[in-house]
């Protein structure tokens, strides 16, 4: 049987909100239990993908995203949101497991998930 997929929409920045931490723990647990995970970074959510975060003593969120991707999670990020915030639209400012795309790709994720959760502001 094909594995069930858990989808997330993340709208908030790291460090300021608890969302990113909860999403990380929940996604990791789901992946470890054998589910698929797909995540769309929208609005301020794209900030989670920024390279070189140093939030010592917290763990950098870009490193968390890499960890989730290594366990099989897939990431897309909103391109317009990326450009608006001064990041490169090809994704060169982001951890490379995050693909900069658009709302069509978000709609694709929505067509593929079995359960879906929004981490809003």
């Amino acid at each position, binding site marked *: 049987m094909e594995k*069930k997929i*858990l989808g997330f929409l993340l709208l908030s920045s790291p460090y300021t909100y*608890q*969302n990113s931490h*909860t999403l990380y*723990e*929940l996604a*990791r*647990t*789901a992946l470890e*239990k054998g*589910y698929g995970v797909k995540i769309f970074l929208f609005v301020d959510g794209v900030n989670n993908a920024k390279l070189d975060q140093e939030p010592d003593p917290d763990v950098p969120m870009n490193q968390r995203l890499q960890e989730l991707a290594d366990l099989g999670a897939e990431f897309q990020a909103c391109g317009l949101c990326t450009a608006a915030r001064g990041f490169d639209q090809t994704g060169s400012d982001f951890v490379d497991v995050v693909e900069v795309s658009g709302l069509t790709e978000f709609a694709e994720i929505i067509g593929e998930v*079995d*359960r*879906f*959760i*929004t*981490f*809003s502001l």
Partner: protein
Amino acid sequence: MKYLIWLSHECETLREITESLKKANQEIALLLVQDGTYLLDKGCPHSAELKDLAVKVYALKDHIEERGISDRLVIPAELVDYSGMVDLIMEQYDKVITA
């Protein structure tokens, strides 16, 4: 269908969503995480609703404990860890509604 209503922001009212689904004979439960766990705290202006609504309430144990509100809950919620939360979301309930 069994619905899991996810609340993460604040202790806000869930009366409308829960009441409308209950009247339509749907099975529902709440899953409270982050600041949504304050809905269980006796200091939240909406916590009294939980008794009226008479729905099953799950909450993330970590988030209740880090807030130090374990002794202040208005109803006995079922505290779950992340593994329990994944089971609820992926298997025990059919659909998640982010409130």
